[in-house]
């Protein structure tokens, strides 16, 4: 129900964008630039790269708008563009996205901080996310913050669903460890 409503509201602006209406393009930019920038920030973990991604994403969205058929919302369509471009940036840094074979035994070694005991704070989660290795951070943010399920993440990253699940579970443990360390330090 809600999705339909939103699609309609955007469809009008999107139609104007298809005609090259700059004002309509700016409307979409205003509406989405901040959230898309944050999506990219979380994946790239780099302000300049996230800005590049944002610029490239909007440009290619407007360029390819005729391929947007409206079967998803414009927002989720744009978000996939942003995510794909962000992942390309991370990969081109030559840091392996996920040390897939390298188990690091984090899952086994890390002390099992019981989540019930832990008091979550937005700031400390954000800080811990930024300290995660690229591969963990990507899977974790896609799942926790961008709301994709493991099937979709598998599709986005070209990995298997099982890998996505295990990477998430490790990333999550690592995150909790980092948060614990932060609280000891502070």
């Amino acid at each position, binding site marked *: 129900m*809600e*999705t339909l*409503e*939103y699609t*309609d*509201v*955007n*469809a*009008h602006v999107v*139609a104007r964008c298809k*005609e*090259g209406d*700059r004002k309509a*393009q*700016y409307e979409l*930019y205003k*509406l*989405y*630039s*901040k*959230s*898309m*920038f*944050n999506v990219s*920030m*979380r994946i790239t973990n780099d*302000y300049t790269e*996230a*800005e590049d991604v*944002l*610029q490239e994403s*909007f*440009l290619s969205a*407007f*360029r390819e708008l005729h391929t947007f058929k409206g079967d998803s*919302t414009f*927002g*989720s369509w744009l*978000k996939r563009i942003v995510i794909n471009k962000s992942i390309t940036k991370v990969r081109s840094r030559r840091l392996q996205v996920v040390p897939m074979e390298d188990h690091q035994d984090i899952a086994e070694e890390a002390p099992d901080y019981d*989540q*019930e005991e832990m008091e*979550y704070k*937005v700031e400390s*989660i*954000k800080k811990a996310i930024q300290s995660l290795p690229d591969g963990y951070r990507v899977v974790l943010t896609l*799942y*926790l*913050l*961008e*709301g994709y399920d493991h099937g979709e993440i598998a599709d986005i990253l070209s990995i298997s669903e099982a890998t996505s699940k295990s990477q998430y579970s490790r990333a*999550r443990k690592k*995150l*909790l460890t980092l948060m614990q360390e932060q609280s000891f330090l502070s």
Partner: protein
Amino acid sequence: MKDKLKDFVQAHRDEFDSFTPRPDLWQDIAAELQTEEKTIIMPVEQEQEASVFSINWHHAWRYAAAVTVLVMLAFSARYYMSTPDTSGAVAVKQPVTLEKIAPEVRQIETKYVQVIEKKESELKALGAGTVQFAELDSAYNALKKELYTTPNKEVLLEAMSDNLKMRIALLNQQLEVLEDRSNVKTRPDHETTNI
């Protein structure tokens, strides 16, 4: 397994979007779009010259406009040479000949213009401003002018009625949006969190 971390994050989702891009980033994007439009459109027009009409309206109109200007220039030049008459003569004479060339135009116009005017007054009743069709208008006029010279009248007429239909579609969209708005309380800006 219940994931408390995920629940917590979802509950505080907005607080995680704390970064803001530099304010002038849009200017860069707009500038880039501007140069792309200039450089990309030209070659496309030339390539698609013959079969463009049903493929890409945007370019078709511009092409039509360009051709029309040239044709009109040539025509008026010839006209002035043969009859060194008063300057308004060309414009006055056009509607008469258009009737002869393509009587269908009048049918098309009466058919759609009524609908368009009806929709526009409905929109006004809902408190919306008038919808501007500047680009569609100029495209339509260009097509209309080209009727004088085209060997392919049918294609032009079809493009003209498509042009009018597109206005109706846009007006309908606008109406839907407005009706939606008055029926449902919209929550702006939350779409991304609902994906």
